C-alpha cells in the first residue's frame, strides 16, 4: 500500500510540475564553468541581478572541477548535453571548439564594442575576423606578502631582485616564518606563479613573447633561461618538504600566517581575504636593476560564449550582452576581487589588495603568459612541459639550461614560425 501511495504522489507531482513548466514558458540557460569557487557569487549576486531585469529567462550556474573542465566539456559538447552558455578557457582550447562549430560566432553581439582588441585577443581567430567569447576577466601575477611579518622584521616591499633576495635572507635568518610559500608537487605553481610571474621582466613582456612566436627568439636565449636560473635560487627559501607541498598546502601555509611571501595570482585575493587573519600587501615581480621598466603578466583568463547547439540562442544572447555590459563588470569585479574586468569602462573596486594589483597596469607594461597563444597547439604541449620543467629546475633535477633546451627541442619538433 505504501509504495502505491508513493507512486501516486510522485506521479501527481510530476504531472503538476510539467504543467507548471508548460505555463511559464521560461527559457532556462545553463552555464558550464570550471569556477566552482564562484558558485555563491553567481547564485546570490549575478543571476538575481540578471533575472530581475529579464523576466522569463532563468539561469543556472553548473560548474565542474577545474582540472576536469576541458575534458568534461568536450565530452558533453560531443554528446549534445552541454549547457547553453560555455565559460571559455583562453586561446586554443576555445578556438578549437569554435573551429569545430561548437561555439557560436559572437562578433556582432551587442556589447562587444565595450572591449579592446587586446582584451578580445584570447577569443579571436588567428586572422582577427571572428570573436567567439565575451571577455570576462583577467588575472595579474605578483607577490602577496604578510604585512605584519614584514613590519615586525622591518622589511619594505622589495622593488629590485637584489632587495627581494635580501628580504628572503632576512626572513630566513629570523626563522619565525617560512620565507616563501610555494610547492612543486602540483607542478603548475612552479610554472605559473614562478616562471610566468617573474619571466616578463626578463623577456620584456609582449616584445619577447611576440618574438618567440615569430621565431626570432628561442627559449634557449638568455632572456628565457635566466628566469629559470632565478627560480632555482628560490629553492632554499621554500618550506621543508616543498617537493610534496601541494597548491592548497601553500595557500594554507600563507593564510595561517606561517609564511611571509606568497608568489601569487590575483585570483587568490578573495580566498585570502576571507581566510587570513593578518594584514596583506602586494608587490609586482621585482625588476632586475633599479629603474628598469617593469612588466607584469596580466593574463586574459575567462571569457564566456554561446553553445552553437543551444536551444535558446536569443535568451543566451540577451544574457551575453548583459555580461558584456559595465553593470556586470562592476558586480563581478567587486564580488570577486582579483578578477579584473577587461571592460573598457573603468570599474571602481573597493578591495585595497585588488586596487594595488590593478594599479600596476598604469606603471608597468602588461603581457600575457608566454605559452598560451599558439605555442601550446602541438605535441609535446609547451604549457605542460613548462610545468614539468619549472618544477624540475626548482627541485634541482634539471639545470636551467637543460630545461630550456628540452622545451625548445620539444617546440622545434612541431612549431614552424611563419617567416
Amino acid at each position, binding site marked *: 500500500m505504501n509504495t502505491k501511495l508513493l507512486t501516486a504522489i510522485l506521479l501527481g507531482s510530476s504531472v503538476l510540475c510539467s504543467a507548471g513548466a508548460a505555463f511559464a514558458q521560461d527559457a532556462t540557460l545553463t552555464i558550464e564553468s570550471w569556477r566552482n569557487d564562484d558558485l555563491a557569487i553567481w547564485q546570490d549576486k549575478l543571476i538575481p541581478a540578471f533575472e530581475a531585469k529579464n523576466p522569463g529567462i532563468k539561469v543556472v550556474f553548473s560548474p565542474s572541477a577545474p*582540472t576536469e573542465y*576541458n575534458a568534461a566539456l568536450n565530452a558533453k559538447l560531443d554528446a549534445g548535453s552541454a549547457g547553453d552558455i560555455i565559460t571559455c578557457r583562453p*586561446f586554443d582550447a576555445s578556438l578549437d571548439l569554435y573551429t569545430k562549430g561548437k561555439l557560436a560566432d559572437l562578433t556582432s553581439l551587442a556589447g562587444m564594442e565595450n572591449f579592446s582588441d587586446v582584451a578580445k585577443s584570447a577569443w579571436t581567430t588567428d586572422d582577427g575576423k571572428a570573436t567567439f567569447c565575451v571577455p570576462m576577466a583577467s588575472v595579474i601575477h605578483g607577490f602577496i606578502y604578510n604585512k605584519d611579518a614584514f613590519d615586525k622584521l622591518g622589511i619594505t616591499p622589495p622593488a629590485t631582485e637584489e632587495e627581494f633576495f635580501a628580504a628572503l635572507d632576512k626572513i630566513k635568518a629570523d626563522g619565525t616564518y617560512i620565507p616563501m610559500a610555494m610547492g612543486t*608537487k*602540483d607542478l603548475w605553481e612552479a610554472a605559473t606563479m614562478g616562471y610566468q610571474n617573474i619571466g616578463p621582466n626578463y623577456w620584456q613582456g609582449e616584445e619577447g613573447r611576440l618574438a618567440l612566436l615569430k621565431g626570432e627568439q628561442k627559449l634557449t636565449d638568455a632572456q628565457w633561461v635566466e628566469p629559470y636560473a632565478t627560480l632555482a635560487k628560490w629553492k632554499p627559501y621554500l618550506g621543508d*618538504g*616543498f617537493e610534496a607541498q601541494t597548491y592548497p598546502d601553500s595557500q594554507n601555509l600563507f593564510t595561517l600566517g606561517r609564511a611571509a611571501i606568497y608568489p601569487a595570482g590575483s585570483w587568490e585575493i578573495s580566498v585570502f581575504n576571507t581566510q587570513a587573519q593578518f594584514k596583506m600587501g602586494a608587490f609586482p615581480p621585482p625588476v632586475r636593476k633599479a629603474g628598469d621598466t617593469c612588466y607584469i603578466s596580466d593574463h586574459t583568463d575567462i571569457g564566456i560564449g554561446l553553445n552553437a547547439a543551444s536551444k535558446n540562442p536569443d535568451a543566451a544572447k540577451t544574457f551575453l550582452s548583459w555580461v558584456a555590459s559595465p553593470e556586470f563588470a562592476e558586480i563581478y569585479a567587486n564580488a570577486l576581487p582579483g578578477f579584473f574586468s577587461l571592460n573598457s569602462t573603468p570599474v571602481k573596486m573597493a578591495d585595497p589588495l585588488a586596487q594595488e594589483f590593478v594599479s600596476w597596469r598604469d606603471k608597468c607594461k602588461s603581457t600575457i603568459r608566454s605559452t598560451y597563444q599558439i605555442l601550446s597547439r602541438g605535441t609535446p604541449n609547451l604549457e605542460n612541459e613548462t610545468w614539468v620543467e619549472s618544477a624540475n629546475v626548482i627541485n634541482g633535477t634539471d639545470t636551467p639550461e637543460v630545461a630550456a633546451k628540452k622545451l625548445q627541442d620539444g617546440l622545434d619538433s612541431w612549431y614552424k614560425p611563419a617567416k
Partner: protein
Amino acid sequence: MTATSATKRPFRWHIAIFLAPAVLVYTAIMIMPLFGTLQLALFRNVSQSQVFVGLDNFRTLFGDPNWSTNFWNALRNNVWFFIIHMLVQNPVGVVLAALLSSPRLRFSAFYRTAIFIPTILSFVIVGFAWKLILSPLWGVAPNLLDLVGLKSLFTPWLGKEEYALTALSLISVWQFIGIPMMLIYAAMLSIPDEVIEAAECDGVTGMAQFWKIKLPLILPAIGIISILTFVGNFNAFDLIYTAQGALAGPNYSTDILGTFLYRAFFGFQLQVGDPNMGAAIATMMFLIILVGVCIYLFLIQTRLRRYQF
C-alpha cells in the same frame, strides 16, 4: 538429458534464452566498446573528419620520440608498479592468510575484517588520505617517525622522483592486500584435515609442513592472484591521478599507461585531447594485458598440478 537417447534431440532453446541477457549486456557494454576503440586507433582526424590511416598512429606512437619516450617511460613505470605488487602484496598476502588460518590465533575475524577494509574504500579516499598522512606539513608520518627518533628518515616521498612511484605502489599494496589474503585464506581452509594429519604422521610439521604440503596446494590460487594483479596493475589509473594529478609528477616519474592514456585521450589543461592517439595507447594496453594473460594461461596454468580430493 543424457546422451543415451538416439532419437533427434530438440534444439535446446532455453540455453540460448538463459544466456541471452548476459551475452547481450556484455556485448553492448564490453565487446562493442572494445572493438570501437580498436577501430578508433586506425583513424585520424584530418580537417574535421575521420580518415582511415592504417597503422600510422602506432608508427607515431613508437617512431616519434615525443610519443615513444613517454610511452616507454610509462611502460617501465608500470612494470615497476607490478613488480612491487608481486614482491610485496602477494607474499605478504600469503603470510597473512597462513597466520589467519592458524587455529591458535585469537580475534582472527577482527584481523581479517580490518585488513580487508581498505579494499572496499574508494581510490579517491585512499589517495587523499595517504597524501595527507605523508604530507611534510600536516601529515602524521613525520611526527610518528619523530616519536621513535627516526625523523631523519622522513623525506617528502610523493614529491621525490626516486621514491614517488615506489611509495604509490606500496599505498596500492596497502589498499589491495585483502584480496590475495582472502583468496589464499579460502584455499588454505579447503585443504582437507586428512592431508594435514597424514603429513603429521610422517613427521612433517611446522614450517616444513607449510612449504611441502600447504604451499603446493595453494599454488593455483597464487596463480590466479598473480594474473588478477597483472591485469589490475596494467589498467591502474585512479590512484596515480588522485595522488599526483594527470601529469604524474615529479618529472613524469609516476606516469603509468593509464595516466598517459588519459592525457592523450582527454587532453590536459592547454593540451587538446586526441582520441585517436588515445585509442592507439589503449590498444597497446589491451595487447600487453592479452599477451600477459596468454602467457599465464598457456605456459603456467597448464603446468600447475591440481589436486583433487
